[in-house]
């Protein structure tokens, strides 16, 4: 299992559209992908769980994955966060 911490930098936080992007991206990998915020874990392949995190702007989220392509999966999700989910 590998993990990496990222900061939510887009203005609106992880609302429906970013959540949808996260789920679409992580569903493309075989590994299990999780997001963790303030001790709450969410399955990154389930949009309801991801939205439940209510990760607003400036909050910290830990992305972790375990499986064959765990590295690629974490990389891809972290990139999404860094690109601000193509939002402001």
């Amino acid at each position: 299992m590998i993990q990496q911490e990222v900061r939510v930098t887009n203005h609106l936080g992880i609302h429906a559209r970013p959540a949808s992007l996260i789920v679409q991206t992580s569903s493309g990998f075989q590994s299990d992908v999780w997001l963790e915020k303030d001790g709450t874990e969410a399955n990154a392949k389930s949009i309801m769980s991801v939205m439940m995190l209510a990760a607003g702007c400036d909050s910290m989220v830990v992305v972790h994955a375990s499986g064959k392509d765990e590295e690629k999966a974490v990389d891809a999700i972290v990139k999404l966060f860094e690109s601000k989910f193509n939002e402001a």
Partner: protein
Amino acid sequence: MPSFRKKAGGTAQRRYSDEPALSLKRFYDDLRRECLLTPCMQPIPDAALTGRPVHRPGLALAGFVKYFPRESLQLIGEIEFAYLCNLSTSRRRQAFEYLLSERVPAVVFAHPAEPEPWMVASAAKKKVALFTTRLPAEAFYEIAGTHLHDVFAERTSVHGTLVLVHGVGILYVGKSGIGKSECALDLVCKGHALVSDDVVHIVRTGDCLVGECNEILGHHMEIRGIGIVNVKELCGMRSVRPRARIDVQMELVEWNRAEYLDRSGLDEKKVTILGVPIPHLCIPVSPGKNISAISEILALRMELSRNGKSTIKEFDKKLILHMKNSAAARGRE
């Protein structure tokens, strides 16, 4: 049975764009009962109507001939006829013969207008058909206009299944054997209505797409493993509809394409049929998926959004507000 041309995306479509124009004889046969139509000359001259609407040539008779639609069926009603009768004999002849000189396909005199004998003779010489109808001009205009509109409406056929679910027309497309018919069967068993299985003929009326079943196939469908069943006979009249508006296209796809799916329902994809855009959804099929239940939910959700409600947008607003509030609370700490 039309033959299909495969298009990209797995949807087979066929356009009837090279539809021949409607011959006058055919037009007469179609409408003579309904419009109480009588030809003023036999045989009916060989001419054809196009998709242009019926035209009342008042302005042309009065001398304004710019923009005169010469391909249109010309309709002379009480008003135009009263105008002609008010003219001197020579002006009247000149006005009427203008129509003939433009080689219009036909002139219809609506009740109470009647062509004078010289008009018939002159039209016969120019091979322009004259008809009389015992309907008033407004009634003829409506019936003939609707008929021409139907005949010349844009059409296509799609390999798919159309079911009316809670009043919402859902067009199922997807590869053969993916389960379109089985889904339709399930919906019919739940009390929804089948419009057409396997082949859906689509007509564009205004900005609406109306789907119908094939005349020969009717409401028969093939259920793999059982064979051909007649839904109308088995499940009764309430389980079928002759036609329905198509509100949404649902494409059934194999589960392994699932990574491309929209997961929140925020982005509405569209598909364009005959120039009309309608919502398009990709629904993955896998064991344990109940497509008919999904269809019912989709239909109800479409009804809801027609009333201006969007669940995901409202949910998103709430979520963003919640995040803002907790950020503000953190800031105070």
